[in-house]
């Protein structure tokens, strides 16, 4: 009987809490669906890139060597490159874009300038890491227009 008397009080508490419940719906986990790409963070893109690397059919020996490095050596060697794209990915893209000869020259340029570039490049969030952005376009803009 005493419990029945407390029901109004319980209902009152529930009523007040229900407002918080309505607001707490904003705290559901964020979607990772491509349908809502605002939260499609770069970590997923990295996996996609890796898939692309594994699945791409290339006859270029340089690209195959870089693919081998990215898939088999880099995961063991550790993620130490502070740049985005990473040096191996930069090399891959440079060779894809400009061919082996220019691509290799651009790769050596990247390896020479990467440490000092950090004084000038923007710092961006890529997946779980922060990296300095230094895409191909920043280094071929003076002789190649996209």
């Amino acid at each position: 009987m005493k419990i029945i008397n407390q029901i109004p009080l319980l209902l009152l508490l529930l009523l007040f809490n229900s407002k918080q419940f309505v607001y707490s719906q904003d705290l559901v986990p964020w979607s990772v669906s491509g349908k809502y790409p605002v939260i499609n963070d770069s970590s997923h893109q990295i996996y996609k890139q890796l898939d692309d690397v594994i699945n791409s059919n290339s006859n270029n020996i340089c690209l195959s060597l870089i693919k081998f490095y990215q898939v088999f050596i880099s995961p063991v060697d550790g993620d130490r490159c502070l740049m985005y794209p990473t040096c191996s990915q930069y090399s891959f893209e440079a060779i894809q874009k400009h061919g082996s000869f220019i691509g290799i020259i651009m790769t050596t340029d990247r390896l020479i300038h990467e440490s000092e570039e950090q004084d000038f490049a923007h710092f961006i969030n890529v997946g779980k890491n922060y990296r300095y952005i230094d895409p191909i376009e920043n280094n071929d803009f003076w002789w190649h227009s996209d």
Partner: protein
Amino acid sequence: MAQRLRKLFRGFVFLIFLINGSHALASDYTVENINSFADYLFDNEDYYRAITEYERVIFMFPNHPLSNKARFQIGMAYLMGEKWEIAINHFENLVKNYHDQEIGKQSFFMIAETYYKKKDYQQAIGAYKDFLENYSDDHMHDEAHIRLGWSFLRINNINKAQKEFRSVSTYSPKRAEAEKVAQEVIKINDAPHKSPLVAASLSAILPGLGQLYAERPGDATVSFLLNGLFIWGIVEAFNNGNNALGIILTGVGLGWYTGNIYNATNNAYKFNQREKIKLIDGLEYKYDLSFTCNRDKK
């Protein structure tokens, strides 16, 4: 009797709380409140959550005048969140659905602004020109001319930039400042300059020298050491009769040497570009004619 009265009183109190509580809950969910909360999130740069709240406005009050503002703000949130392609798609849809309304016009303009913020200046120029063609004799014409001026400046076309700044109508409050910018942009030609040819030649003579000239001492050190070590290794290999090793090292060393020349040239171009951007950014800041979103925040 007293017990019944007590029960009645409790019931009465409960009813009052119930009505009051429900009323409070309903009053929190007015379109103004949700919109204001969304704006608060937007102002605090929490764009993802802001989008959710603007979507809530549209979902719960689709015919309210604020729902159009919410639709526009979703595009702005994508833009400020640097989701360029989604922002452009969103604004394009708004242009398609509300072409004759203010929101359609603003969205058309924001497509160009998105390209500008994305630093895709060629596309931005095309989009601003499209805007000028589609919305003739509009008060946003002057804004579009100013943005075109900055876009041309960013791609190093000073003459066209000056022309656009001077196209701002005489009755516009921004005319005087636009004229000042048009006069000052010539200073960009006086920006500190490093000759890429000199940088390349110096690095060809002595690896690292061109990088020093382009004010990159770190690159100069790396280049000098790498090339120096390879040259030393090549000489030692041939001197000791290890011809095969010498040939391999020569092949790899040539790659570093060529990369060193490319690096010096690249550094000179990047130096020149950086100095120009510094001057343009300075002008934008000085004359308060910069990108809409940034200016609104000041």
